[in-house]
Every structure is written in C-alpha cells, then in structure tokens.
C-alpha cells in the first residue's frame, strides 16, 4: 500500500520521541506510580525489532542511548551497523561511516522540541496528541497511547509502553501494519552518557 511522506514524517516524530521519552510520561490524572518512573537523565541499552508488513523476517538492531533533560539525546545503534544520532535544541546530527550529517529541517527541530518536552516530564504535551490509558498487573504497568489528532492517527495506529520500576518495553504499530518493538534492557550505558556529555560540551 502506498503511503504519503507526511505520514512518514509524523511517524518519525512520534516513534522518535516515544522511544526515548516514554519513560518520562506523567500527568495529573495518571497513576502517580508511573509518574515516579521519570528521571531527569538516564542511559541504557536497547534491542529493537522492526517487522515490516509483507516481510518474513524482522530487522533486529542493538545499541545504547542516553539523554539529559532539556539538554540533549544520543541514540546509538551498534549492530548490525554503527550509527549515531545526536539531538539538542539546535537540531539533529547523524553519523554514518565517518560522515556526519546535520539536519536543518524543521521537522527534526520539531522532534527535538518534543523530546525535550517529554524529558522535561511535560505530560500536557503528550496528552495533547494522545489519549492515555493505564493498566496494572501486580508490579507491571502498561500505558496505551491512542492518537487524538487526525495527522498522527494517519501514521500511527497504536503505541503501548510497559515496565515495572522503569520503562522496559515499547511497541508501536503503524497504520500500514509495520511493528516496531524496543526492549530496554534495564542496565545503564555510561559510555553513551559520557559521549553525550562530551557532545553537549562541544
């Protein structure tokens, strides 16, 4: 099925900030235990599995990430390729095979803005775009996010994040049926945090 580029952009935004910042979700009408999960800065490793509709095998990647509230973000893929993505209020920079590319597009700036809103525990921002529904099973919680606006709904069917004392898992399903699953391994990634700190000091 053919899809539009705008959907791609919307989805890009949404996946991007949710993958990194979902742990920071909070709201006045959301269970305070979930709000307590948020942290001003964090790092860790992840495993991402992406299954495209019509393809028999998922594309699996591994890497680490680090973020500092209102400062910046590093999202680093270690395998099967090495790829880095830095973002801060000035824009987004990606590195691949030694070459660096800076995105000056407004979409990327918007993404960055959304990330920082999330990392700053700006639950109001998230609630503007999604309806939030929390479910509990013992110590495990799950937050289902359903798009409110037509623009986001055109790209995203649903998002579910879950965890215990921290965010463990994110699943995003696009309207086209592609599914992205990100598992956060519960560890820390000091190297990623150091790299982010260095980048922020540049």
């Amino acid at each position, binding site marked *: 099925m053919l*899809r539009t580029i705008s959907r791609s952009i919307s989805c890009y935004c949404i996946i991007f900030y949710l993958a990194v910042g979902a742990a920071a979700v909070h709201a006045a009408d959301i269970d305070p235990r979930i709000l307590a999960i948020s942290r001003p800065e964090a790092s860790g490793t992840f495993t991402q599995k992406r299954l495209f509709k019509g393809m028999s095998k998922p594309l699996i990647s591994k890497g680490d990430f680090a973020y500092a509230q209102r400062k910046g973000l590093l999202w680093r893929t270690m395998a099967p390729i090495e790829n880095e993505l830095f973002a801060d209020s000035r824009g987004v920079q990606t590195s691949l095979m030694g070459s660096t590319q800076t995105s000056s597009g407004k979409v990327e*700036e*918007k993404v960055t803005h959304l990330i920082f809103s999330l990392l700053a525990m700006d639950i109001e921002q998230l609630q503007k775009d999604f309806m939030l529904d929390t479910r509990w099973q013992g110590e495990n919680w799950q937050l289902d996010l359903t798009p409110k606006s037509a623009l986001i709904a055109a790209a995203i069917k649903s998002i579910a994040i879950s965890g215990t004392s921290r965010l463990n898992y994110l699943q995003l399903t696009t309207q086209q049926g592609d599914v992205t699953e990100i598992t956060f391994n519960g560890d820390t990634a000091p190297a990623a945090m150091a790299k982010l700190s260095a980048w922020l000091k540049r």
Partner: protein
Amino acid sequence: MKLFNKINNLGQRNYTWLIIWSLTVLITLGIFLAQLQKGLPIVSDISYLLPATSNAVEQEIIQRQNESFQRRYILLISSPEQNLTQQVHATLSLLAPDFGFHSALNQNLPQGYLALVQQRPYALMQDADRQAFNAANSEYLTQSAMGYWLGFNAASFLSPSKDPLAFAGKFFQAMGSRLNGQAEGLLAPVATDQQSAVLWQQILPLTHTTADKSLDAQQLTFNALQQLISQIQQKFPDAQVAATGLAVHSVISAQQTQKEIFIISSVATIAIIALSLLVYRRALPLFAACGTIVFGSWVGVVGCIALFQQIHILAIAFGTSLMGVVVDYSFHYFSVQRRLTGARTPVNNKKSNIIRIIFPGISLSLITAVAGYFGLWQTGMLVLQQIALLCVLGIVASCLTIVAIYPLLPQIYMPAWHLPIERLLTSIALSWQRVPTWIIYNLFAVLLALTGYTLYQTRINPNLAALYTPPASLKATEKNIAQIYKEFVPNQYWAVLAADPQALIKHLYQLKPELQALISQGVIQGYNDLSQWVPDPASMDANAQHYNELLQDAKIQAHFAQFDASVNPLPQPSSVQLTGEWINQLPEAIKNNLFVPLADGRVAGLIRFSGIVNPAALHAALKSAAFNSPQQQTLDIDTIHTISDGLKTQTQRARYGLALAFFLTFGILMAFYRNRTALALIAVPLASCAITLCLISAFGSLSLFHLLALFLALGLGVDYAILFSHSDKFPAGVSAEIVSLAAVGNALSFGLLSFTSLPMLAAFGMATSVCLICNFIFAPLVVRWVQRT
C-alpha cells in the same frame, strides 16, 4: 473665436447639441447595460499598474504566477496557550471547506506520483546516494539503507522489499520539509515572544476555489474568510486569527481607498455645497454641476471598459479627480447667467447669450485638456491610458451636457454674493499690475530654467511604498508570519525556457552544477526547481540497468537477507516514463510554483531561491553562458524590481508626456491667440508646475502621482488663464468669481486628499494643492498681459 461662434450658432439653431447629447446617452446606456449583465470588470490588482514588460514571455509567467498567488491566503493563529492554538488550527481546517477554502499545505503527494516512484525507486535520489550509486559503492549504499530502515523512518511509503536501498525513502525524507513548507509553525504551534509575553502561533495556508480575480470576487472571498474567522473568534475568544494574502491586500487597499475617499469626498462635498450655496444662494447650480460630473464620469468609465475590457479602480479614482475641472465649466455658466439675469434681455436670448459667451472658453479648455491627456495616453501604460481616456470622454460628455442641457434648465434669479477670496484675487491681479515687466520676464526665465534643471536632476521614487502601504496591523501579521514561515522567495526567480517538458528537465539537470556552485559561493542558500521532483529522462534507462546490477552485489544481497530472502530485482522498465507525466502527477501547489506552460507551446521551469544572500551576484550569474546561450534561454524575473522599474519607466514616460502636453497645449493656444497671449496663457500652469516640481524635489523625491497632478494643474491653469483672458468678454466679475470658486473647491478637495494614508493619493493631492495655489496666484497676471497685447 468666430469659428467657435459659428459652431455654437449651428448647435443652437438645429438643436444639434441636444441630439448629440441624447445619442451619447443612448449609446452609453446600451453599452453600460450590456456591461452590467456581464458584471462590471473593475480590477484592483497592483500588478495591473505595471507596464507590460518588453518580454512577452516574462509578462505571461508573471501573470500566471500572480493568478496562482491571488487565490492563496495565509492565516496566523495566536493564543497564549499551545493547546488552544492547536484546537483553533484544527477547527479552522475543519470548517474551511464550508467557506470555499481548502488547505494549501502540500501534505500529501498524489497517488499517481507515488506510483511512478514505486515503479522506479532509483529515479530520484539524494546527492550522496547518487554519487554512491554512480560509483557503485555498495558498502555505503548498504550501510546507508540499513541506517534508514533501522532509524525512525518506519512509515516510508515503500517497504524494504520495494525499495531495499531506501533511495525513495531517503529522498522523500529530505524533501519532506519542502512538502510542508519548511515551517514548524505549519505542523504545530511555535512559541514566539510578543512584547514580553509568549504567544503560541501556528500557520494555516488556505486556497480558495474561485478562479475569478475581479475585485467583486475577491471581496466575496474576503468576506467568506472574515466570516470563517469571526465564527472561530466567537468559539475561541482567547485566540486571535489574522489573515494575509494578495487578495487581502487588494480588498483592504480598496476598502481603505473607498473609506478615505468617502470621508474626504464627503467633507469636500459638504464644503463645496456650502460654497456653492453661499455664492449662488440656490441649489440648482450645485445639482447641475454634480449631475454633470456624475454623467461625465459614467460616460468615461463605460467608454474605458468598452475599449479596455476592464478598468482599474485607480483609473476611476484618479480619472474622476482629474476631470473635476468640469465643475468649473458649470459654475462658469451659472456665474454668467447670474450676471445676465435681471438684464433687460428676452429669456431665450439670454440663454443663447450665456452659451455664446462661455462657448469659446469651454471649447478651448476642452481642446487643451484633450491635448494634455494625449500626453498621458502616449505613455503607453495601461492605467495611465485608462485615466486619460476616462478624463477625455468625461470632459467631452460634461461639456456636451453644459451646452445641450443647461439652456433647458429653468433660469432662476440668483442674488449676488461675493466670496471674500475674490477680493484676494483682485488684490493679486492689482499687485501683478504694479510689477515691472522685466521682473516678470526674469521670473519666468528663472522658473523655466528651474523646471528644466529640476526635471533633469530630480530623483524618481520607484519605491513600492509610493504605490501602497498596507495598514500597520497587516504589516505586523506578515512580520510574524515571515518569522516562522520561510517559504522560497516568491518575488525573485529564474525561468528556464524549453520547447517541451522533456527538454526542460534536461536543461534543469544541466544547470544543477551551476546552481550548486552558487550555493557553495554563498550567493543563495538553496533552491527548488522541477529537477528536484522529476527525474532526468536521459539517465533513467541507464539507472534502471545499473540498479538491477547493483542489487546482485554480495553486500547488498546480504543486506536483503536480513529482511527476506525473496527480494528480486525490479523488472526492466519497458520505456522511459514521459517527463510530462511526472510533472502532471505533482501536487498542484508544487506544479504551479515551478512549471508554466506558455501560450506559444513552449514551457518554462521556474527556479525558486531560498535565502538570496547576494542579489547582484545572482543577477550577474544569469548572464553566464550556462544559463543564457543560443540553445538555452533563462529569464531573470524579479517582480519587486519589475514593479520598481515599471514605476520608474511610467514616471519617466509621464514626464515626457507632461512635456508633450505642454507643447501641444501651447500649439493650440498659439493657433487661437497671438503669440504673446498664448505665451501668457501657458505661463500660468508652467510657473505652477515649476514651483511644485522644485518644492517636491526639495522635500522628497518625485513620483508618478506627483506628475499626474501636474497634468491636472496644466488643465486647471490653462482653464483659469483662459477665463481671465476672456474677462473683457464676460460680465464684470465673472472671471474672478469662477476662478475663486473653483480654486477654493479644488483646493479643499485635493488639500484633504493629501491627508489620506494612501501614499499615491496623498502625493497626488499634495502636488495638486500646491499647483492650484500657484495657478490661483499666477492666473490674474494674464489680465494684464491680455490688456497689454
């Protein structure tokens, strides 16, 4: 004079004037009714004021682009809360279709275009990918594709099975910002600092469905937009919605013109009514004068529409102002009548006498006015020609009314009452008598020299501000929009001409290295043209073959294997897709911005720039062989420059037109008077214009609208001078009375006009007022001169 009397006698005896007048009314009425059925084509587009450029193709492109822009509106939503701005944006988007608007955002690429890309994912690539593809750098291509599929780009419209190297996905990711206008304010509200308070602002570009560009249609669209905004404001009182666009400017400037003209003309009319009643103590002269000028304006407008198929609102505004001279003719009639009423002459004879007395003066004024406006006509500028034709037709129709209808009006007794200003005029006349002749000669010699020097030295103001200054609120809205909505520069672009779309794309691809060099040199920051959206037909077949070969590469096969082992090379395309098909499938907004099919069968591809850092270097670059050669023609289109240049050309031509008008008028005066008298008659407006020109040059720069005023000053100056030159033939005091009445009335009207906020009307009013005062001072000089000769 004998000739005039013969003509007049013929008219009086055979009721010829009445028959001609009746025929004029019938013909004008017939044409008017036909025009009314089609709708009066009154236009207000500022670009209409410009002269047609010498290059017809350039003119056609500008016109087509203007038509496209005319339907566009940009709405700016502001509120103190982000959520509220978003809500207003969503509601506006939802309600807009009910009011005939649709979103002008290029959010979606048409399915047909995406289908073309799906068939050929190698057709459009980013520069880095193109280089790697041409170099068969499978390592880079694989890594880059993996980066794309692993990154946050999940919703590419092609899956890895259709676009394993992610060429199309990466291309559209890069072009996405252009699809959305490169403005975050389009996608979501942005926070802006507004006078120490933060506002959340978002932009909504809209396009109206109507293709009608007349002022009426624009007014209707503007009203619909106002209703939409008003509905939103009622629902969300804490949010503000402001709109801009070419049509908004047209309507607001028309409204502003109408409002100010209404206020000024109301005040002036009341003053003139009071003045007329004071002098004549009867309503008839006033009604007759008003009726005459309304009739003249009507004939002029109908005649203009018949000849030009449409008329600009400014031609009506200036044309009717310029033909205000006919009020003098009306008052001329009644002033003479007042003097004759009560004399022991049979009534019919009195009426004949009045016309006989005023006929030579009116005829000569009419002839000189026509000669003056011929000077305006020969400028070749459409609006100036409309003004000239409106004036000539209007003045002729008004004069015809005076000689045909006025004698039929009841002859009433009008008690004499003299304006205090008449005494001033008499004092001026007496003062002139005391001035030695050599001083007058020298004075005029100096004035002539000054005029020549001023016309040679004066700076012409081609600034757009001389044409129109938008209201402060609209300027503020546009400033806000410009801060967050950075579109490609709309006014300056290049047009590459080609025989057909295929040749055009070939040319555009050939120009890519040159344009890239301009970016590298810092002349421009970026550009957009069709080559960014439509593939090069020449390399498509070669690309297809190379692409399928690359897919067999071991690294790329290993990359496929991570997804699915069943990915197969694409089938070889049967033929190159026609370039025209790619262009046709583009979103309308992109197509209209970048592609113009021309009337002669050729096509033009527009290269639009973002961030023109060095305009001079950009202009210079166009002269290089790459852009302009016998095989390749590229036009440099800069509408702001064209408008400025057009204004300058119009002003220069109007300057020559004014000189021609003076010569023609002088020639006519020479034909009717002795040399010295003719010289004295032309000296009045010449002195007035010289002084006005010197004053304008001393305090500012000369604009087209100052010169238009001088045309009026020429007509009025000659008119006053003729009145004084004929003073011995009129009953005593008539000349002073008419000139005083006309000067005060005109000074009131045009003096008030100089206070309007519309720069062109203010310039016109100011220059006319100065000229009128000068005409008033110099006209009595003629009496002394005529007496001497």
